[in-house]
C-alpha cells in the first residue's frame, strides 16, 4: 500500500491541520507515514501546502514532486498543483472557490466538492479543510473515514477540543459529498 497527497490552499484554510490529521490517522492505522509542511517565509503571502505519504513499506522521500493525489482548497492551488499531479491521479477540488472545470479531467480524476458551502452548512465556515479531507478519503480510499475521526482528538489543539464533534461532522459531510 502506498499513497501520497499534496494538500494546498490559502493560509488560514487549515491545510497543515488537514495533513496532520491524515498522517496521524495513518499512523494509527499501522502504516508508515511522513508529513512535510511548507515552512518559513513561504508561508507568508497567503498560500500554504503540505505533503503526506502513507505506505506499508519504509518511506523514501517525504517530498513528492509528482504526487498521486492533490487536495486543492482554492484556485491558485488547483492551477499550480494539478500540473504536478501524476497521470491518472486524483484531485479533490474545493468547488466553492475553484471551478473543477479548470482541472484537466482527461488526464486526471477530478472530484469537485463545494467545501465552503458544506462547511457553512455544517455550521462552521472554517472547517473547509475537514470537508475536503472527508472527500479525499472517499475519493481515494486511502484510509477509512473512522480513522480520521478517531485521530481528531489527537491533532485538534486542546483549546478547540469542544469543536471535535463539529469537525467529525464536517469530515462526514465531505465524505458524503464526494
Amino acid at each position, binding site marked *: 500500500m502506498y499513497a501520497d497527497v499534496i494538500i494546498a490552499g*490559502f*493560509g*488560514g*484554510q487549515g491545510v497543515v491541520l488537514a495533513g496532520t490529521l491524515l498522517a496521524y490517522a495513518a499512523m494509527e492505522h499501522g502504516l508508515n507515514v511522513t508529513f512535510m509542511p511548507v515552512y518559513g517565509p513561504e508561508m507568508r*503571502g*497567503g*498560500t500554504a501546502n503540505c505533503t503526506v505519504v502513507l505506505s506499508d513499506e519504509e518511506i523514501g522521500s517525504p517530498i513528492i514532486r509528482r504526487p498521486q493525489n492533490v487536495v486543492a482548497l*482554492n*484556485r*491558485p492551488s488547483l492551477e499550480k498543483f494539478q500540473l504536478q499531479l501524476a497521470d491518472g491521479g486524483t484531485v479533490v477540488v474545493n468547488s466553492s*472557490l475553484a471551478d473543477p472545470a479548470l482541472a484537466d479531467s482527461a488526464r486526471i480524476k477530478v472530484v469537485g466538492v463545494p467545501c465552503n458551502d458544506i462547511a457553512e452548512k455544517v455550521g462552521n465556515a472554517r472547517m473547509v479543510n475537514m470537508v475536503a479531507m472527508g472527500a479525499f478519503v472517499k475519493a481515494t480510499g486511502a484510509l477509512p473515514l473512522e480513522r480520521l475521526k478517531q485521530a481528531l482528538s489527537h491533532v485538534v489543539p486542546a483549546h478547540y477540543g469542544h469543536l471535535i464533534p463539529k469537525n467529525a461532522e464536517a469530515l462526514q459531510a465531505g465524505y458524503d459529498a464526494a
Partner: protein
Amino acid sequence: MSRIVLDEERCKGCLLCTVVCPKNILRQSSRMNAQGYKVAECAPELAEECTGCTACAQMCPDLAIVVWRTVKAKEASR
C-alpha cells in the same frame, strides 16, 4: 468630489484603511481576490464624501490606494 482608486489585486484586506478614514466610507467588501483576501472597498453610496485626505492611502501597507483630490472651484481659485 475627491475619490480613491483601490487596486483590488494589491489589497490584502487588512482593513487598516477603514479605521483611519475620517469619513468612515471604507469597509470590507464581499469580494475575494486571487490571493484569497477579502478586499476593502469604498462604499459606493458614500463615495462622494471622500475629501481626498489620503489618510487611507497613507495607512495602507500595500500601496493599494491612489487618491485623487478634486479642488473645489472656490479653493482652486485661491
